[in-house]
């Protein structure tokens, strides 16, 4: 089943075309890598998918809802984690989970259950009463990811989730992403680290507002005769 369907999405700011006839789809439970250089139009497309912005034209369906009229329904079904680390630094781990569970309208008992479950999975159950600002960045990022899926969304959008994190934490982070995808949550991720793109089931590469390549990492490497995705990316960027 397709969880995201995009056909001929166009987004213009004045005369500037940020997204130029994008067409792609994401399957349920898939890890989809959304790559592209800075300024290629990734963030704009992601904002549209999250219901923060409306497209100029084209058909965009997320979790079965239309982004023109049903953003309220979409927002209930998605989770989002931004490139800037974004939990509240002056709240404890527990309070952050309570707050974000609350804004997704979960009942108090459900929030407690999910918080205990998610913290347990990260092995951070003992840290629940610590002020978030005092924790290492890697932990914070894992916690931010857990908060993004506290309401069991259909899709979770990750905007450069591993920026500024050491390689070991990145590896652990991807293990959590896999685990999440195995539970049926679709993962839509943008990243600058091309080695991470290899972990995705399929990736698309954007340049100048267009999707110039879309396939599994293996097929892309074969097609561009490259050893890794980084080479594919550079070959595309040079053209």
């Amino acid at each position, binding site marked *: 089943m397709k969880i995201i369907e995009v056909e001929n999405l166009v987004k213009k700011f004045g005369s500037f075309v940020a997204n130029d006839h994008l067409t792609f789809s994401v399957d349920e439970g898939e890890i989809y890598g959304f790559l592209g250089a800075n300024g290629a139009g990734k963030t704009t497309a992601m904002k549209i998918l*999250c*219901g*923060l*912005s409306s497209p100029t034209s084209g058909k965009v369906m997320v979790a079965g809802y239309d982004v023109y009229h049903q953003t*309220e329904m979409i*927002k*209930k079904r*998605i989770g*989002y*984690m*931004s*490139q*800037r*680390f*974004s*939990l*509240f*630094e*002056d*709240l404890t781990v527990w*309070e952050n989970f*309570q*707050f*974000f569970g*609350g*804004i*997704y*309208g979960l009942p108090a008992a459900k929030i407690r259950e999910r918080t205990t479950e998610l913290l347990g999975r990260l092995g951070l159950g003992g840290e629940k009463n610590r002020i978030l600002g005092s924790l290492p960045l890697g932990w914070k990022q894992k916690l931010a990811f857990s908060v*993004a899926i506290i309401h069991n969304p259909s899709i979770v*959008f990750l905007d450069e989730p591993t920026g500024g994190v050491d390689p070991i934490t990145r590896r652990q982070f991807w293990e959590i992403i896999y685990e999440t995808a195995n539970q049926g949550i679709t993962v839509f991720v943008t990243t600058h680290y091309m080695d991470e793109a290899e972990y995705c089931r399929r990736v698309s590469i954007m340049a100048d507002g267009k999707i110039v390549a879309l396939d599994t990492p293996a097929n892309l490497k074969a097609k561009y005769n490259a050893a890794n995705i980084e080479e594919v990316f550079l070959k595309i960027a040079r053209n």
Partner: protein
Amino acid sequence: MKGFIIKEFYHIFRDIRSMVVLFGMPVIQVLLFGFALSTEVKNAPVAIIDHSNDQVTRAITSKLLSSGFFILSDQVPGEGHIEEVFRHGKVKEVIVFESDFAAKLEKDRQAGIQVIADASDPNTANLLVSYTSAIINDYQQEYLKGMSLPVTVNTQSQMMYNPALKSVFMFVPGVITILLMLITAMMTSISIARENEMGTMEILLVSPMRPIQIIAGKVLPYVLLAFTNALIILLLSYFVLGMPVKGSLIMLLAESLLFIVMALSLGIFISTVSNSQQMAMMLSMFALMLPTILLSGFIFPIENMPLPLQIFSNIMPPRWFIVIVKSIMIKGLGFRYIWKETLIIAGMAVFFIVLSIRKFKIRLE
């Protein structure tokens, strides 16, 4: 929504700086303005040169000294050395009775008193001279009693609403206004700017919460805090500074609430045009604090300003709120005397709310 408010209170109570601003500032300002910055004159040192020293001059002197406005300075300048005592700054006023005062008064029906004041502080000098004249006039009335006179004109002056000319009456409305304005506008703009800066605003916007709910959740705690603050200031000024509330307390609180809502919408607006906490803070300080103090009529009368500034002062919300507070607290007036000011503040609140919502929407695009 409840979670939102709880979260906001955590932010405030865990940050010592905001706690100090929130609760330290009102107390300190009220006490400072109430006690330190007093424009009243009490116990001004006065030197008296009495060339006649008869029963009339002694009567006038004792009347002056028992008024409470003056105390007798031990410095008695000799004739021609009056300027010297002023130079030392120990004497604020010198009173000179001419010689044979009582006799002249009896015989010629007039006698001279010279009042010389140190006008390097013009307000004080003015007050002292008018106190002195009033007291001498008063004595004159008594003296003339029982005598048949052709015609006399009695001037009776009365200081309405503030007979004792207490400066607290002037400062408290101003301080309430400044504090409500600063705390609400500054704290809200900073707290919203912080969410923008930290990137948490993005997460909130992606959530099913509507933008209007997010903003309401952010500002409601500040409404509560600002209102608590208004109460603290009123209690302090009532019990510590002896400021009366002649009109309806309910109306005063309702008007304060309206002003708080206005300041909040201004704060939201500031946060939509600034992209960092620092900028929000600077904007609130410079765009709000200075004009509030200088142009609201709090310290400097608006009537004395040059015309362009007078016109400009009309767009300062505090200007109107000060009138409301004074009318209710000091004059005890009812709503029909302040509906115009109320309407202006309500209008400003609506204006800033609409403006912020539009700005907010544009930013989301």
